[in-house]
Structure formats: structure tokens, C-alpha cells
């Protein structure tokens, strides 16, 4: 799939896909989801963020999203 095809599929300009590939643009969650969906992949397989956030020391402060 070309950059142009992907851009058309997710409804953005081709330059946005170019900057996404270069890691210079942080997409919205919606766009990340759409790109992942278009490429039949998971978001965390495509977008890797540097984990510079410290883990909470107290386990009780962790937010439980799913039981």
C-alpha cells in the first residue's frame, strides 16, 4: 500500500502519513486507530512511545481499567 493509498483510506493528506512514518507527528488516538485498522495491525504494533513516565510506587494508586 502506498502513502497516497493509506492517506486516502484514513482521510488525511499524504504529508501527514509521511510525517507519521518519520516519527515527527503524534497522531490523535482516532487517526492512530484508523491507520492501524487500515494496515490490519494493532496500535501498539505501529506506534511505539518512549516510556519515560515513572511507574507509580504505591500499587493502590494504579488505575484499574479492566477487572
Amino acid at each position, binding site marked *: 500500500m502506498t502513502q497516497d493509498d493509506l492517506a486516502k483510506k484514513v*482521510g*488525511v*493528506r*499524504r504529508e*501527514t502519513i509521511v510525517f507519521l512514518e518519520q516519527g515527527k507527528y503524534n497522531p490523535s488516538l482516532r487517526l492512530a486507530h484508523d491507520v492501524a485498522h487500515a494496515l490490519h495491525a494493532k496500535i501498539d504494533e505501529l506506534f511505539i512511545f518512549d516510556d519515560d513516565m515513572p511507574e507509580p510506587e504505591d500499587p493502590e494508586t494504579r488505575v484499574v481499567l479492566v477487572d
Partner: protein
Amino acid sequence: MRETNQRNLSRIITGMLMGVSGLVYVIMTPGEMMIGTILLVAGITFLLSGIIRHTKFDTGPESDERSKKIGAYGLSYGWLTGLFFMFVLFWLDYLNIVRLGTQIALALSIVVLALSARFYQMYLFRKGDIE
């Protein structure tokens, strides 16, 4: 995509109509140049903008989340630059260092606001994102 083409087509038609009316106005009223010139310049601007947008964005959307974000940030930075410029202008005037008339001060502020916003947008577009 059809929406983009429709918008560009209306830009081109509006530009042509304004340009022709401006030209006719200039020819029909030899003494009065102002209204005709304004119509002509606005018409040419519309026409060029429609043609350029049509050739540049014909195969995709004119704006997306990145361009909207950068556009908004560019305007915000431009506004801050304008505020700083007016602040400096005020103190220069207050301290009698530079004395500008209202008309020139306003014209300069308009130019600084418009150009700085455009400059920030161009810089951010080249950079890729606002961060």
C-alpha cells in the same frame, strides 16, 4: 473529494466574475479606479487560490487533523507576537522614542499579525508537528 472540487470550482467562478466586473468597472468609469482595482485584485486572488488548491489538493482532503492543529497553533503564536509587538509599540510611543500615527500603527499591527501567523504555520508545517 467531490466537496473539494465543488469549493474550488466556486472559487474559480467567483474569481472570474469579480475580475471581469472589476475590469468592466475600470473601463466604464475612467475617473474612479478604487472599486474596480479592489474587485480586480480580489478576483485574481480568488481565481489563483482556486486553481492552486485544485492542482494541489485534487486527490485528497485540503485539511486534516494535522493541518487544523498547526493552523490553530500558528494563529495563537501569531496573536502572541502581535500582542508583544503592540506592547513594544505602546512603550516606544509612551517614551517618545517612536511616534506613529494611528493609521500606521494599525497597519503595522495588521501586517505583523498576519505575517507572523503565516510564518509560524509554515515553520510548523515544515517541522511536522507543534511539539
